[in-house]
């Protein structure tokens, strides 16, 4: 069973303290974010069971939430996940070309991860950056006004980053 470090456990307790006594289930979404960050970017059933134990709720209560929200990954993902928006406003500004270009450059289709485990390409629905389209989410940041050149430099940046922090 997964175990969090003391720092992470303290963070979990701090989150739980935001909600009234006995309503610790309310901490579930924020705690799942913490758990996912601490577990290589995805939630295994072991991790979810552990979260259930921390919040004193049933494992099924965690599963039904984890399967509902799009930000929780239930399978391993690449170290860098390119989540490219494909909804109307981004489509109007050429996101289809950007998605195709990333796919071609990395040799993967949306939903796939590169063989080296570095990159996952995912198409997503509106992320609230319509005025800065086309765009993608990369970790905790948005990369906006995407062009092919920008995509090239983001991929390079990720590769360099991975080499340094290996």
């Amino acid at each position: 069973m997964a175990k969090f470090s003391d720092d992470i456990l303290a963070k979990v307790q701090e989150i739980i303290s935001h909600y009234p006594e006995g309503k610790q289930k309310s901490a579930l979404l924020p705690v799942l974010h913490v758990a996912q960050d601490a577990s290589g970017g995805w939630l295994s059933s072991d991790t979810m069971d552990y979260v259930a134990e921390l919040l004193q709720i049933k494992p099924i209560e965690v599963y039904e939430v984890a399967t509902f929200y799009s930000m929780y990954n239930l399978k391993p993902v690449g170290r860098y996940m390119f989540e490219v928006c494909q909804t109307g406003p981004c489509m109007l500004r050429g996101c289809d070309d950007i998605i195709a270009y990333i796919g071609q450059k990395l040799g993967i289709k949306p939903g796939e991860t590169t063989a080296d485990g570095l990159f996952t390409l995912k198409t997503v629905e509106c992320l609230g950056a319509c005025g800065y389209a086309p765009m993608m989410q990369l970790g905790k940041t948005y990369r906006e006004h995407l062009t092919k050149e920008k995509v090239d430099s983001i991929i390079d940046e990720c590769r360099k980053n991975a080499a340094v922090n290996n």
Partner: protein
Amino acid sequence: MTFDFSNMGVKLLLEKAHVEGIRRFEVYRREGGYNTAEKAIKTMGPEAIVEEVKKSGLRGRGGAGFPAGMKWSFLAKPDGVPRHLVCNADESEPGTFKDRYLMEFLPHLFIEGLLISSFALGSNATYIYIRGEYAWIAEILETAIAEARSQGFLGKNILGSGFDCEIYVHRGAGAYICGEETALIESLEGKRGNPRIKPPFPAIQGVWMRPTVVNNVETIAAVVPIINMGGEEYAKIGVGKSTGTKLMSACGNINKPGVYEIDMTISVEEFIFSDEYCGGIANGKRLKACIPGGSSVPILPANLLLKTAKGETRYMNYESLSDGGFATGSMMGSGGFIVLDEDQCVVKNTLTFARFYRHESCGQCSPCREGTGWMEKILKNIEYGNGKMSDIDLLWDIQRKIEGNTICPLGDAAAWPVAAAIRHFRDEFEWHVLNPDESQKRNYGLAHYADPVHVPVG
């Protein structure tokens, strides 16, 4: 203090957005920030604040446009039961990115609005439910909250008033439906975002079955200028029931996409073509269509967008944008202003919206769960040259069967864009069906969509 309303560009929210360092407490304070909170807490009671908000005519800025002061006055106050203010920062309606701008660049204006509103409603624990993807903004807000707390504007006994207030940031995790207030409450309780059947309304039984007010970010921020200048003065800005200023997030094929604060007296034409706002259509193209209030409101062709069916100028306010009802008008919605140029395909655009709503349907109600999937499939067939003429009527039939038949408004939100696209652009859909090969190589173009509308005499 005096106000000059003759200046068209009145800014009540974004005036200080470009002041260097305004994100930090000391700069915001130096610029007069938190003076309004001091005024409210030290010299006004909760009832007086609610009264000013009522007088201001402020309408909820999330999309529905319900009068904010009235919503506040519905809040139940049973003895011994805590009440909560929950701020809806789940901004997810395609085309909408205004709350993000406000929170990212003016976090303290937002916190000040939350503090005044919490005081007015008696909320000792206030929650900001922010969409999970805005992770860096959640951090900005947490920093601002910590600063305000260390300066005595949050925490225990604020400004010696005896009022305690904590604000907590709660990140969602990717679900458009959580912008619906009862789904948001479910999500805040750590559950799937399934909307509740109303009544009971959140004002009676909201989060943890306690009385709850859910307000949009922009609504909360607007409370600061309202209390600062007084509700009556605020109501003098704008026109009719469209009082105050409104943030518009403009995107699509325009020269200057971005967030603009307007007083609701300018025309749609001015908003699109003047350099102060959208700066005209990009790349010298012509305007074909526009969705003026976020993806769920009806799309209008250029001719009906700039002028109403009666031939009158259309303005950027609640009443004028909806002039003509759904037959020839649209809605202000969330202020997500999406512009399509002459090279854009309305079928494709509608398909992306249908896909969006299929993806975001929570699955509780069958008309929405099944209908959104069918609409996406049929639109995909038409878009990619496999459509039949009868598909257009079938689409119309499906959207009619979704509208009004679901627990929450997501069903309507999914139905309306399809209905309006067929209503106004039926010949573009037919052209796709009749020209399956050609439609894969080129778009239908501007056609007659910018031609003057025939105005019946008398």
